[in-house]
C-alpha cells in the first residue's frame, strides 16, 4: 500500500513539474517562435503568393478577431489597390496540422495562390506539398467559397502520389480558408481601406 502511494505521488509530482516547466517555456518562447515562423516559413510563402505586390506584405499586416482567435492577414497591393489578402488556415495531416497560406483577391473572390507553411509530414512524401510547387499550383483560380477536394473525393485536385492524407489536409485547409473568408469578408474589406 505504501509503495502504491509512493508511486502515485512520485509520478504526479514529476508530471506536474514537467507540465509547469513546459508551459512556462512555451509562453516565454512564443513571441520568438512567431517571429521565426514569419521570417522562414510564412514569409517565403506569402511573398510567393503575393508576387509582384507593390508593398511588403509582411509589414502591411493586420489582425482580425474571429471568435476567440486572432487571425493575421497580410495585405498585397496590386495596381495601386490593396485588394488582396493572404492568411493561414489549417488541415489535419498525417503528422499533425498542415498550415496553408491562402491568397485571395477580394474583387472576384478567387484564390490567387496557396503555399504550405508549417507541417510535420513525412519527408519525401507528404512534405512534397511544400517542396514541390506543382501540387499547390493547382489551387490557383479556384473560387474561394467552393469546397476544394481531391479527385478521389469527387473534386478537381490531383492528389500527390503516396500522400493522399496530406493532399486531403491541404484541400480541407483551403475549404476552411473559404469559410473564414466568407465570415470575415466585410471586416477585411473595411480594414483594407486603411492600406489604400
Amino acid at each position: 500500500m505504501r509503495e502504491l502511494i509512493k508511486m502515485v505521488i512520485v509520478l504526479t509530482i514529476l508530471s506536474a513539474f514537467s507540465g509547469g516547466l513546459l508551459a512556462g517555456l512555451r509562453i516565454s518562447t512564443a513571441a520568438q517562435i512567431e517571429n521565426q515562423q514569419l521570417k522562414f516559413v510564412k514569409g517565403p510563402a506569402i511573398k510567393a503568393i503575393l508576387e509582384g505586390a507593390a508593398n511588403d506584405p509582411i509589414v502591411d499586416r493586420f489582425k482580425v478577431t474571429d471568435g476567440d482567435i486572432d487571425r493575421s492577414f497580410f495585405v498585397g497591393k496590386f495596381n495601386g489597390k490593396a485588394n488582396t489578402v493572404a492568411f493561414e488556415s489549417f488541415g489535419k495531416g498525417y503528422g499533425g496540422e498542415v498550415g496553408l497560406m491562402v491568397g485571395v483577391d477580394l474583387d472576384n473572390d478567387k484564390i490567387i495562390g496557396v503555399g504550405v507553411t508549417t507541417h510535420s509530414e513525412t519527408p519525401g512524401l507528404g512534405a512534397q506539398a511544400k517542396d514541390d510547387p506543382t501540387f499547390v499550383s493547382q489551387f490557383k483560380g479556384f473560387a474561394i467559397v467552393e469546397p476544394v477536394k481531391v479527385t478521389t473525393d469527387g473534386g478537381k485536385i490531383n492528389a500527390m502520389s503516396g500522400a493522399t492524407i496530406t493532399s486531403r489536409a491541404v484541400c480541407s485547409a483551403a475549404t476552411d480558408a473559404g469559410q473564414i473568408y466568407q465570415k470575415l469578408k466585410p471586416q477585411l474589406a473595411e480594414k483594407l481601406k486603411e492600406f489604400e
Partner: protein
Amino acid sequence: MAKSFTQEFVKGLWEEIPPFRLVLGLCPVLGVTTTMENGIGMGLATTFVLLCSNVLVSLLRNIIPSKVRIACFIIIIATFVIVVELLMQAYTYPLFLKLGVFIPLIVVNCVVLGRAEAFASKNSLLPSIADGLGIGIGFTLSLAALGALREILGTGTFYGAMVFGPFFKPFTFMVQAPGAFVCLGLMLCVMNLFGSK
C-alpha cells in the same frame, strides 16, 4: 566498477559508440543523415536530451520507485525533448524544419532510454554526466560521419560546399533511404574490421 570520469566519457566515443557498437537508436541515424549539417544538429539535440535526462535520472534514482521507473524516465525524457523542440523552433528554425518529425522522435530513441535505465539509474551524478556527454558526442560524431559520407556521395558537397566541381554526377541513391542502409552497413563493416580482436 569504479571508472574515472574520463573513462566513462571516452567509452562513448569508441568502445560503446551508439549506432556502431551498441547498434541502438538507428531511426534518426538512417532518417536525418542526408547531410552533415542535419547529422550534427540531430546529434547535438540528442546529446542535450541525453545529458539532461541522465542528470535528472541519476539525481532522482533513489526517489523513483522501481516499478514505475520506465514511466518516470519517459516523463523526464519527453520533457527535455519538448524543451529542445521549443528552443530549436525559437532559435534555429531552419534546422528545426529540416529535422522535422525526428526531433519529437528523440523520445523513443532507445539510446536515451537505454542510458537512463542501464547507467544513470545505477550511478551517481558525476559518472552519469560523463556517460551522457560521451555517448551523446559519440552519437553526434557517428551521425556527422554518416551524414558527411552520404552528402559527399549523394550530392557532391561537404557541409554545403562543393567538393568535386560541377562535372561530378552525384549518386542520388545515397541520400535516399536505401542508401542510408548501405552506408550504415559499410561503416559497421569497417568498424568491425578495426575493432575485431
